[in-house]
Every structure is written in structure tokens, then in C-alpha cells.
């Protein structure tokens, strides 16, 4: 297939996907932003398996004109974060449910439904909606994010002006077997402010979500997300963030199950002396495909970035990691660390990793590593010789493998909750 043919396929896929879709109405400026996104999407087209960036993750089901039905998953436990004191915002199949949600308010906090913000004559989101998504199309195209900017039907707009005591918790419920949800959140953490955002739930049969975050000078943003344990969901998500001076950005994602998950994180570190950490712990069993695609740009001095991604795979599950650190000229004293590891619990599973470094500054310390391996037999025997049954010993070693990623969660109660879920997930899988 030559370039022209590939392009044609991408454009054809786009017409199929967009068939019958209309841009949501809003204020004139908002409609213009959506129109701009649509034009950009029509120009680039949706991804194909031939695209380098989609070599290991098939985009077909994301491109299809409708969501593949996904059985609604009924969990036998309280949802994650239930025990955390939080501001809860509920979306059912991608539609905000005011009844089920807490009031859109809090100290040092402004929250608004996206559709309301995009309908207002004047709103700060005018300068933020789709802005980072658009910028992040260089050097790699991210068409699903562009599609999201054009067609997102719901979401929230959050502005933190100081320390926000309670986390804002976005809960995504899935009730309709064929729901196809597109959510877009815009978050601004102003100078010196501090905000935690939690996300959990299957959301829909097919889920496209974008979160654009601006972390201003001396501000801190914490993001903890739990995906799963539903089995049949397909999700493509993007987190875009720009990070100011002396700022902190931390994002952790736990994923369990799901036939297709592609989580892209694109960070742009613009201010000096900042820190950006992204981590993920994924557990896949059987029909599971999980892709973390990360792109961190260092465009300031003395900043630290960390990527810690761990995937536990078995029964033919597949894990993908594509992670890049780009250090621009002048981003001296950059400290970049990246580790991606696959733990294969059997011979059928697969972990593919593409770590990349591109460095244009001379005084930097960047390291990356990627490993694939099985459970350490020596350690397993040691545990068993102390009376720990094989399955339980394997779980202990699995949690140990994930520990470095979980340690990236700063809040102890939230980390505890996540750990507890992982333990539960392992136990259930063991007990059946």
C-alpha cells in the first residue's frame, strides 16, 4: 500500500465513523472550535493498522460506525474510591447525571458541565478547549482526540484556585450495551492550587475520553484512575497536560480487564523545576489488549519526569507500551526516567514495548529500560518452602512487581484503596 492509498483508507474510515454524526450546538466560539477540529480530523483521517503509531493496537473497532455491544458488568463489590471523601460526579453512558452527583461546588473550586461552559457567551474555557489536543498533533497525529474535541457531548470544566480539600471524583457508569460515549474534560489548576481528580468505571461499550489539564506555576495536580473490571469495554483515552514552573503533575492508572484500552498521555513541561510522573499497573487475562502510549516533552530546565508502567498478562493477553521522552534544546539538567515491564504468567501472552529517547540538550540524565519476564522461580520456591501455596505466592510476587507503579500514588488512602482492589482482583481470579 502506498502513501496515497493509506491516506485514502484513513479518509474512508473517517466517513464511515462520522456517518450520521452532527456537531453539538453551543456558543458561536464553541461551534467554531468544534468545526476547526472536524476540519482537522477530515484532513488527517482516522488511524489504520498501517500507521506506525498503531502498529500494535488495532484501531478497527474504534473506527467502526457503531460501538460493538458490551455486556454490562455487575461488580460484586463497592466501586473503587467509595470510601474516599470526595466530590462525586456521575456520568451514565457518557451523560452527566445531576441527580446522582454531588453539587458542582467546593472551596477553591469552580466546576461546570462542559455543555454549559461551551454554551456561555464568555468563559475561560474558550482559550483552553481543544487547545492542547490541537498542539499535541505534532509530531504524532492523535485523530481520536481530535474526533473527541469535535463531537464530545459531555464532560466537566474544572478550575482550582487554591488547595481543593476533596478530590473530584468522576464516576462513569455503563448501563446500555451499545453506548458510545465521548467525554471531554478541561481542567485548570491555577498558580499555587492543588487538585486531585479520580476517575473510575467502565463508562460505555465504547468510550472516547479526553482530559486537558493546565498545571500552572507552583500548582499540583494528582490524577488517579481505575479502569475495569468490566470485560468487554473498548476505550481510547487521552490526557494532555502543560506543566508550569515548580509544578507537580502525577497520574496513575490501574487497569483490569477490557478487550481494548489505549491510554495516551501527552505532557508538555514548560516551566523550570517541575515534576511529571505517569504510572500504570495493568492486569490482563485472556481477551485483553492494553496500550499505554506516552509522550513527554521537556522544554524547561531542571525538570524531572518518570514513567513507570507494569503489566501482568496471562491467557493470551497483550500489553503494549510506547513511551517517548523528548528533551528540547535548552532543557538542561533534565532528569528523565522510564521503565516498562511485562510480567507474563504464561507462554501465550505478549508484551511489546517501544521506548524512545530524543535529546537535544547536552546536560541531561535520561534512562529507560524495558523488560519482559516470568515469575522469578527462586523467589517462588522460597515462598512455597515457607508454606505459601503457589497461587498465593504468585500473587504476592505479582503485587511486588506492580509496587513501583503503585508507589507513584501520593495519597495514602487512595493508594491503599487501589492496592486493595488489585489484591481483590488477584484473589478472585485465583478462587474463580
Amino acid at each position, binding site marked *: 500500500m502506498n502513501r496515497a492509498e493509506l491516506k485514502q483508507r484513513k479518509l474512508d474510515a473517517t466517513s464511515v465513523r462520522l456517518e450520521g454524526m452532527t456537531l453539538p450546538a453551543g456558543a458561536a466560539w464553541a461551534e467554531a472550535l468544534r468545526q476547526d477540529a472536524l476540519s482537522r480530523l477530515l484532513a488527517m483521517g482516522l488511524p489504520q493498522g498501517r500507521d506506525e503509531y498503531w502498529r500494535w493496537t488495532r484501531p478497527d473497532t474504534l473506527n467502526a460506525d457503531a460501538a460493538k455491544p458490551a455486556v454490562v458488568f455487575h461488580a460484586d463489590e463497592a466501586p473503587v474510591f467509595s470510601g474516599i471523601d470526595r466530590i462525586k460526579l456521575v456520568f451514565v453512558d457518557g451523560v452527566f447525571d445531576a441527580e446522582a452527583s454531588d453539587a458542582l461546588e467546593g472551596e477553591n473550586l469552580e466546576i461546570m458541565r462542559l455543555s454549559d461552559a461551551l454554551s456561555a457567551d464568555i468563559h475561560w474555557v474558550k482559550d483552553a478547549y481543544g487547545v492542547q489536543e490541537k498542539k499535541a498533533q505534532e509530531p504524532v497525529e492523535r485523530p481520536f482526540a481530535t474526533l473527541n474535541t469535535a463531537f464530545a457531548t459531555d464532560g466537566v470544566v474544572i478550575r482550582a484556585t487554591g488547595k481543593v480539600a476533596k478530590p473530584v471524583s468522576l464516576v462513569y457508569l455503563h448501563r446500555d450495551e451499545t453506548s458510545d460515549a465521548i467525554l471531554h474534560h478541561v481542567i485548570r489548576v491555577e498558580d499555587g492550587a492543588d487538585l486531585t481528580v479520580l476517575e473510575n468505571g467502565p463508562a460505555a461499550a465504547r468510550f472516547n475520553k479526553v482530559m486537558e489539564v493546565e498545571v500552572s506555576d507552583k500548582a499540583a495536580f494528582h490524577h488517579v484512575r481505575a479502569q475495569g473490571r468490566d470485560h468487554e469495554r473498548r476505550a481510547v483515552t487521552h490526557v494532555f497536560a502543560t506543566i508550569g514552573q515548580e509544578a507537580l503533575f502525577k497520574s496513575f492508572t490501574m487497569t483490569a480487564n477490557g478487550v481494548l484500552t489505549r491510554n495516551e498521555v501527552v505532557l508538555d513541561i514548560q516551566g523550570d523545576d517541575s515534576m511529571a510522573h505517569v504510572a500504570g499497573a495493568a492486569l490482563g487475562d485472556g481477551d485483553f489488549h492494553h496500550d499505554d502510549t506516552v509522550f513527554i516533552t521537556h522544554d524547561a530546565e531542571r525538570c524531572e519526569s518518570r514513567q513507570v508502567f507494569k503489566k501482568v498478562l496471562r491467557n493470551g493477553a497483550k500489553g503494549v507500551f510506547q513511551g517517548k521522552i523528548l528533551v528540547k534544546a535548552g532543557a538542561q539538567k533534565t532528569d528523565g526516567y522510564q521503565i516498562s515491564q511485562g510480567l507474563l504468567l504464561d507462554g501465550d501472552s505478549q508484551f511489546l514495548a517501544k521506548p524512545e529517547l530524543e535529546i537535544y540538550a547536552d546536560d541531561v540524565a535520561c534512562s529507560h529500560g524495558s523488560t519482559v519476564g516470568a515469575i522469578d522461580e527462586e523467589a517462588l520456591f522460597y*515462598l*512455597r*518452602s*515457607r*508454606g*505459601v*501455596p503457589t497461587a498465593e505466592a504468585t500473587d*504476592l510476587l505479582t503485587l*511486588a*512487581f506492580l509496587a513501583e507503579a503503585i508507589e507513584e500514588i501520593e495519597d495514602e488512602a487512595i493508594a491503599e484503596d487501589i492496592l486493595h482492589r488489585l489484591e481483590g482482583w488477584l484473589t478472585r481470579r485465583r478462587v474463580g
Partner: protein
Amino acid sequence: MLEIKNLHVKLEEEDKQILKGVDLKVGEGEVHAIMGPNGSGKSTTSYVLSGRDGYEVTEGEVLLDGENILELEPEERAAAGLFLAFQYPVEIPGVGNMTFLRTAVNAQRKARGQEELSATDFLKEIRAKAKSLKIDAEMLKRPVNVGFSGGEKKRNEILQMAMLEPKLCILDETDSGLDVDAMKLVSEGVNALRDGKRSFIVITHYQRLLDHIKPDVVHIMSNGRIIKTGGPELALEVENNGYADLLAEVEGA
């Protein structure tokens, strides 16, 4: 208690016979020492008893209280009361020592149909036992054996043994790498577990340990066999004269 009969073991992966007919009988409450040159098969014997992969038993059997344990999984052997203090304790990054021990203690209790130990009871017990082995609280929190000194690892093995209260303890060169004071501590730890019922197999190269842990019987292993069995004086003989005479004696016989 333990009876090893004509045990022949080869490596699973290659055609190498390592144990060539080991016979050993350890009675209730007894302490047996096994000495022998490097590579004679002492550790292999302890691994085969505890069920490590990689070895194939071609002949013979091992009875623990009359039950053939060679068919059991390592965890089942542990639950049956067998404990091996490793010559080289394994480091397990990411698994806390405390979590590890609690999991092990409770897994064994469960296998024996006993109630799990409550968190407070467990803590009380482990603190007391750790203290007597001079293992501080900080070491209990650290990942299993990670960053432990050689001596700390060995003390940690004895702590595990004390917590798991096995019927039969096998100590594989627990004295190597220990300074004089640690050797005393470890020996005291072991002696505290001697209750007239619990049995011990102490593998060592040095008589010194046997000054602290007094053996009832001493065996000399060479080239995959027990070539001589005697009283504590046998250890002294090895200490003074090495193995040459003993080996010559056997070859001459």
C-alpha cells in the same frame, strides 16, 4: 521422625547423578549434623527434601512421620512440618518481610485446619521473637532479605523458623557468614526451639557451631552418600584432620 532411604537423585536437565544412595534416620527430638566436602550433595539433599524443582528422584524414598513426602508440593511439605533454612536466602524485592511471614504463618495454619492468627497476636509474637534474635523493627518492614547483610539474612531465616514452628528443621550452613556474636544468637535461637520433640539437621563445615548446638549424631557426606556416622567426636576429628583420612578409609574399605 525422618527417614531417608536409599535416595538417588539426578539433575532433571542433565544426566548427572548427585545423590547416590543416601540413608539417614533422624529420631524425634534429635539433632543430627551433616558435614562433608564442598559439592558432596548436602544442599542437594536439603533441596530435594523441601521439594525444589530441577531434581529427579530415581530411587528411594523420604518418610516424614511415616508419610512419603516426595509426592508433596513444597508448600505441603512445609505444612507437614518441614523447614529449610537456606544456605543462600532469596531476596524478594517488593514483598515486605512482615507480610511474607504473616502470609506464610497463616497459610500453614490454614493447611492444618487452624484459625488464622489475628494481626495483633501475630505482631506480638513476631516482635518478641525478632527481639531475641536482635532483628529490629525496621528490618521487619523491609522487603524480604533485600539489602540484608549475610548475617542478617541468616538471622532472618531463624526468625522464620521460630515463627513457623516446624517439626523438622534443616539448617544449611546457617553459620557461614556469621560473626561470633551472631553465631551465639542464632544458636540460642535454635536451642530455644529444642523441646525434645522437634528434630534438627544441621549442615555445617565447622565444629564451632556444634559447640553451641550439640548434635546427637554426626554424619559425613561424600560424593552423594553418607560415608560415616558417629557421635560428636566425629566433628572434632574432621576439624582436626580434614576429610582425607575419612575418605581414604571408605575407599579402602
